[in-house]
């Protein structure tokens, strides 16, 4: 028989056991609630407190010129980030952010964004979109501000400053805006981002990093540009712009055979390191300026009539009136001429004579030739923001008038690159070669297309376009030792405000050299030049000055003897130079 004490102990033990069992069940249920049902939330909270998954920026590919010279490269830099720190008072946070603002010269907007993210406990965020030099980052890290860290990044550098600015385009500091080949080939250049896990201790300091996926560096891009030729082009273009107070200007130099763009200069320009630069300098005029070309367009008119055999080289045209009436409009010459042969009409750039032979082709025939020369369609060069130019639709051509005006380079819009491409047809013996600016780029596709016969091209070059430089409107473009074939253009500008042509001009000269074995096809365009406005007067000399330097640089042999200027040099006995 149990005693009183025995039964009491037994009862108490039982009660205690039930209480403990109940407590154990409660704990177990709570564990299930936390560990099973709250697993995802708890895991996220733990990970957020102890580690960050950080994007690793790949090294952006270099941009090189055709000789391997660096035009753009990325150097190590740093991005500064910040994350909330537990138990930090708002006052401490504010003090820390103010310190960062002072050290990194943050804008008010950037500072406000950081503060709001920290207050919202939003986690990891960059203090600015900009990247900082490694020295700046080291200086900030030395302050040992809680929750502030840096991660490696790269920053774009353009060692030649404004050289080839419109080709390169550039990237701004925040890297959210790009231009030129930087924009066009961004996918190739940027590489593939990597990821790493950064483990941290209380206070936000990293103690270990694990790379999950290594970044893949971007590929290098090789341009067809030659840095030295680009420099010659930019130097002479700038000189001409200043001398003639032109609004804008452009120079394009192509390798006649391959279509490689050796130089593409456009003014006004900007320092690529300060992309995007002033707004007036944004446009790449070489491909983005659409303008009425004036008399340079006569190269296409001449090809249209000669290819169809509608005019002979010995045919004469009466230009003595100095004007011609077509479709209710009057077309005049800048100087009254006499009776001129077909080549003389072009050599002297007579509008009256050109209209007479242009009327021997039909509208569809003329349109066909214009389109075959690439006018009205983009050249598909590997640069963004190319303009296609425009030709009026066939049904909008006014009978008798439009053809005549287009024949002399009005009522048709072109880009400088299109005209350079068209002139190059004569340099290649009748083949249209697509210009390209990136080696191995998208523009590599496609073989040259025959536009006119070799006979037409050669005859026009030898009997007309060479004469333009030797004795015609581009005499100022003559270059000792080399033959040049080309055509001048001086177009009145249309002012939409007054709906009329004004006394401002777009001057141009397009040509190639040497004539026997063409190496360079070049166009020079100056908009609204002062102190002379004829293409032969203001642009042909620029062509000559650039060609002289480029031909010497490329060691292109002279085609003809130099004028009699002889230098004598002594020779050591028994040795020949």
């Amino acid at each position, binding site marked *: 028989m149990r005693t009183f004490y025995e039964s009491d102990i037994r009862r108490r033990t039982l009660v205690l056991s039930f209480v403990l069992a109940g407590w154990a069940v409660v704990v177990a249920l709570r564990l299930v609630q936390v560990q099973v049902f709250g697993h995802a939330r708890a895991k996220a909270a733990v990970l957020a407190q102890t580690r960050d998954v950080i994007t690793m920026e790949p090294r952006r590919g270099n941009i090189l010129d055709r000789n391997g*010279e*660096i*035009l753009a*490269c990325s*150097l*190590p830099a740093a991005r500064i980030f910040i994350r909330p720190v537990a138990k930090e008072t708002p006052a401490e946070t504010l003090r820390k952010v103010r310190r960062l603002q002072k050290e990194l010269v943050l804008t008010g907007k950037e500072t406000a964004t950081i503060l709001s993210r920290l207050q919202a406990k939003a986690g990891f965020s960059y203090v600015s979109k900009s990247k900082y030099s490694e020295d700046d980052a080291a200086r900030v890290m030395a302050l040992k501000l809680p929750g502030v860290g840096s991660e490696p990044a790269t920053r774009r*550098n353009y*060692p*030649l*400053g404004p*050289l080839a600015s419109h080709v390169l385009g550039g990237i701004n500091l925040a890297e959210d805006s790009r231009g030129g080949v930087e924009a066009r080939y961004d996918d190739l250049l940027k590489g593939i981002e990597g990821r790493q896990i950064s483990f941290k201790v209380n206070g936000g300091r990293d103690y270990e990093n694990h790379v999950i996926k290594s970044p893949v560096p971007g590929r290098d891009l090789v341009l067809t540009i030659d*840095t*030295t030729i680009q*420099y010659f082009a930019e*130097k002479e273009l700038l000189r001409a712009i200043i001398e003639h107070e032109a609004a804008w200007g452009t120079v394009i130099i192509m390798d006649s055979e391959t279509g490689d763009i050796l130089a593409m200069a456009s003014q006004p320009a900007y320092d690529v390191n300060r992309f995007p630069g002033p707004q007036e300098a944004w446009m790449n005029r070489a491909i983005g300026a659409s303008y009425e070309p004036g008399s340079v367009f006569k190269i296409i008119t001449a090809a249209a009539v000669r290819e169809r055999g509608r005019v002979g080289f010995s045919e004469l045209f009466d230009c003595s009136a100095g004007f011609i009436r077509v479709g209710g409009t009057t077309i005049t010459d800048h100087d009254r001429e006499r009776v001129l042969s077909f080549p003389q009409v072009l050599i002297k750039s007579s509008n009256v004579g050109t209209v007479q032979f242009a009327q021997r082709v039909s509208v569809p025939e003329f349109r066909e030739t214009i389109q075959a020369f690439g006018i009205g369609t983009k050249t598909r060069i590997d640069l963004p923001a190319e303009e296609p130019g425009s030709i009026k639709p066939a049904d909008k051509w006014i009978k008798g008038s439009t053809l005549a005006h287009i024949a002399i380079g009005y009522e048709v819009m072109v880009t400088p690159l299109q005209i350079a491409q068209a002139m190059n047809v004569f340099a290649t013996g009748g083949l249209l070669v697509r210009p390209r600016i990136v080696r191995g780029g998208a523009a590599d596709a496609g073989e040259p297309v025959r536009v006119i016969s070799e006979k037409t091209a050669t005859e026009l070059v030898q009997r007309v376009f060479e004469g333009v430089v030797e004795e015609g409107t581009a005499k100022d473009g003559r270059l*000792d*030792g080399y033959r040049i074939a080309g055509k001048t253009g001086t177009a009145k500008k249309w002012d939409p405000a007054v709906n009329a042509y004004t006394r401002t001009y777009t001057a141009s000269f397009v040509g190639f050299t040497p004539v026997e074995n063409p190496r360079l096809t070049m166009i020079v365009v100056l908009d609204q030049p002062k102190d002379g406005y004829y293409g032969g007067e203001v642009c042909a000399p620029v062509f000559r000055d650039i060609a002289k330097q480029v031909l*010497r640089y490329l060691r292109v042999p002279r085609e003809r*003897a*130099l004028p*009699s*200027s*002889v*230098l*004598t*040099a*002594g*020779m*050591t*006995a028994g040795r*020949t*130079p």
Partner: protein
Amino acid sequence: MVRRKWNLKGIALGAAFFAASAAVLTFYVWYQTESVKLGLDIAKLDDRIRELEKDIEALKLRKASLLDPGRVERIAREKLGLVDPEDAVVVYERPGTTR
């Protein structure tokens, strides 16, 4: 009380086992230490390689900016007094030749 007799063979085996264990342990500790040291050395060398690669990139950039054609022309003309070659025919005269 019965005095237990030492088994020499057992002692020898025990000592050998102990010595072998100590040797293995010592080797393991040495191996681990060396591995960590080598790992640290590799990490240091990796850092050094990265630093040198950075230096190479920076030097390439510096070289490119020094070879800026505008800068080269400025130095050639202004500091060295060079001029463009004259467009002329050069005639080499033998010593004693009179023209």
